[in-house]
């Protein structure tokens, strides 16, 4: 019983490793679909944010076209693409906005949904989240 349990887990592990290794040679930016992919992810993400009353009010004073462009640049830079981010730092751009943990959690959820809507594989999604999650400190509660 014990042996069959552990061989099942090893098999699962091997399967996972093999499904993961195929995509590793590309940069994260390429895995997200480069410029077109990141633009589409950004558009899905903005649509999801607009539908959420908890979040939408934060954007009342925002020029969405400029915001969209900065977001595309930011995702490009974060994922290792050859872009220049022309916006303010994460800290400066969120000062005075009073972003709570609930806001941040909801936004992360909308980003995950946008990545799923654009059929980004789970390993790529998690790799991007690994790079974005630590920004929590710069974005919330100030």
């Amino acid at each position: 019983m014990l042996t069959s349990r552990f061989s099942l887990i090893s098999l699962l592990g091997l399967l996972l490793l093999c499904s993961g290794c195929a995509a590793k040679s590309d940069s994260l930016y390429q895995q997200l679909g480069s410029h077109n992919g990141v633009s589409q992810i950004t558009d899905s993400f903005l649509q999801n944010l607009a539908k959420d009353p908890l979040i939408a009010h934060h954007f009342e004073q925002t020029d969405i076209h400029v915001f969209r462009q900065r977001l595309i640049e930011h995702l490009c830079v974060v994922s290792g693409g050859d872009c220049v981010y022309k916006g303010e730092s994460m800290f400066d751009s969120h000062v005075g906005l009073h972003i709570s943990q609930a806001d941040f959690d909801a936004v992360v959820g909308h980003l995950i949904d946008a990545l799923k809507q654009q059929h980004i594989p789970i390993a790529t999604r998690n790799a991007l989240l690994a790079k974005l999650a630590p920004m929590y400190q710069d974005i919330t509660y100030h």
Partner: protein
Amino acid sequence: MQLLLKNSLIILLFVSSLALTAQAGTSKLIATGGATTIEGAAGGGIVPWAVINGYASSDQWSTTVMYSQVGVDDFSLSSASMGLSFGNRFEISYAKQAFDLDTIGGQLGQDIIGIKYKIVGELLYSRLPQMSVGVQYKQLDDFALPQAVGAKEDWGIDIYLAGSKVFFDAIAGRNLVTNLTLRATKANQTGLLGFGSAQSSDYQIMAEVSVALLLLDNLAIGYEYKQKPDNLNFAEEQDWQDVFIGWFINKHVSVVGAYVDLGSIAGLGRQQGWYLSVEGTL
């Protein structure tokens, strides 16, 4: 103590109903509230994690109800619990356990009231693990059998410190949840066989670990290990372990199944079997 227990339950029910009418929040990501342990705290099946139950984030409420059943060779344990959380910071829980001694005959049971408070860190967002402290007050239904086998008290308090951390993209692109809990306890078989004994009535620090790999956003496989004291002379008490699969169907319903190894209980060796729990969250 019985009165305190009843009052606490009434307060819990009252606050839960308030929470239900005041629109529970669900901002947290799926699976980040964990499952519910057989003792009522959020965690795996047997190890409490630093996570706060339900899906409430800051300034939101959440309530959780759970029913679980464990069936091993000579015993079965059912556990029903309800929990309430606020702000992804506080968790209060109540669990009622019934332990059937299928081979020996008879039934034991206990009530567990738990409180957990998140001290520091964030499960997903900070380098520092999320750290929580918890207290569990446990009261046995009937002390006759535990007393006969050498237990000293029919109630006890466990205090634990838990750390939990998610590592994104950890193994084959999947997120890994890791947990370490240190528990100060006098409980014999988690309290079902009473607390302490004539030989050993001091608190002991026990380590509990749990790891889970999220194969999908809402599907986890994992392993848990729970170290336990060995206070009673009449029979050796061993550590517990299990291998589990957790399916978080949506933010309102989750199911956990496990293969459990509870070691020797009350002199009956190799207690292995299954565990199933169903959970509802608002």
